[in-house]
């Protein structure tokens, strides 16, 4: 009897165990792609707005109102995306360009209005000079910005500083190329 109850119970669980995956347009309107691979092996690819796969392979397009009614809470809880600031430097220097200096107050404002506790400061360089030297220069740039923001009242424990050196250029260039746009610090306020 116990076994039968257990069997019925597990069958009920299986029936209840359904799922839906819905592809939405990105925040900029572009429609990306997701693949949904069932543990039994079948793969369904979604690449159109509101395209939905229910269970293993039942594919259809949800209307806007269906999406809203099924997912309103999760959609309403969506936080504001990360704000990104780019600060530019003089060549081989931790000295900020004048137009970037004014951006520090915008960063502080964004930090306060968003009640952020997670700010990343990422240093970069162009590809002129040795890799290791550029790694250090890019770290020095990031640390100089950290110091300025801390002076303005940002606590150290919300800041994460990293250095990408010349490995992550904004404008991809061959090695040894002077590129002012790559001499930068990115500040991400989450």
């Amino acid at each position, binding site marked *: 009897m116990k076994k039968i109850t257990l069997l019925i119970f597990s069958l009920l669980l299986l029936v209840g165990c359904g799922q839906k995956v819905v592809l*939405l347009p990105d925040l900029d309107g572009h429609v990306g792609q997701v693949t949904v691979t069932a543990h039994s092996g079948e793969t369904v690819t979604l690449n159109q707005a509101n395209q939905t796969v229910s269970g*293993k392979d039942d594919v259809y397009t949800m209307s806007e109102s269906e999406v809203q009614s099924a*997912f309103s*809470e999760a959609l309403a*809880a*969506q*936080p504001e995306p990360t704000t990104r600031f780019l600060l530019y430097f003089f060549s081989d220097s931790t000295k900020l360009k004048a137009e970037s200096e004014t951006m520090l107050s915008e960063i502080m404002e964004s930090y306060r209005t968003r009640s952020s*506790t997670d700010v990343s400061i990422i240093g970069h360089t162009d590809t002129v000079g040795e890799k290791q030297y550029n790694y250090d220069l890019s770290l020095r740039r990031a640390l100089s910005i950290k110091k300025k923001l801390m002076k303005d009242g940002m606590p150290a424990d919300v800041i994460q500083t990293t250095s990408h050196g010349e490995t992550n250029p904004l404008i991809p260039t061959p090695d040894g190329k002077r590129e002012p746009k790559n001499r930068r610090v990115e500040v991400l306020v989450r």
Partner: protein
Amino acid sequence: MIGSTFFPHYRMLIKDGIRFFLPLLLTVVFFIVASTISTAQAAEEEPTVGSVKTVTGTANLNRNGQLLIAHVGDHLYKNDILVTADNSSLGVIFRDDTILSLGSRSEVCIDEFIFDPAHDDVSFVTSVSKGTAQFISGQIAKVAPDKMTVETPLSTIGIRGTRFLVKVD
């Protein structure tokens, strides 16, 4: 001086004492330093993976079996399970700028999160065990699309830089 004149073996005793206690002292100092360093390393090994940005109703973070009430600003760590009650929701942002928001009666576990793009080391796995969730993928899905997956009881979702919804009954 008198001591050493009348009891010359005192000096020996002091020498022996140093010989015995100095290594002991050094050992103790070594262990204190070593334990401080390993604590510091342990703290470094547990980096924040993101933070809580929105909460309505009651949302919790299940951290190592301990149920903590989620507040805006709380830091998130690998292996945290995000849990929401009835009529509740939760929104978080990860270090790679992925946005995740949950509707009520939902549960999502942060199984893995490595974000070190300067060394080409990224990996992001979460599992939605029940409820509703919205994902807006960030930099990990952009730089290495096969390194971000979302698991459900029925399937694995692969992401090519995008926004999607999941509902698990």
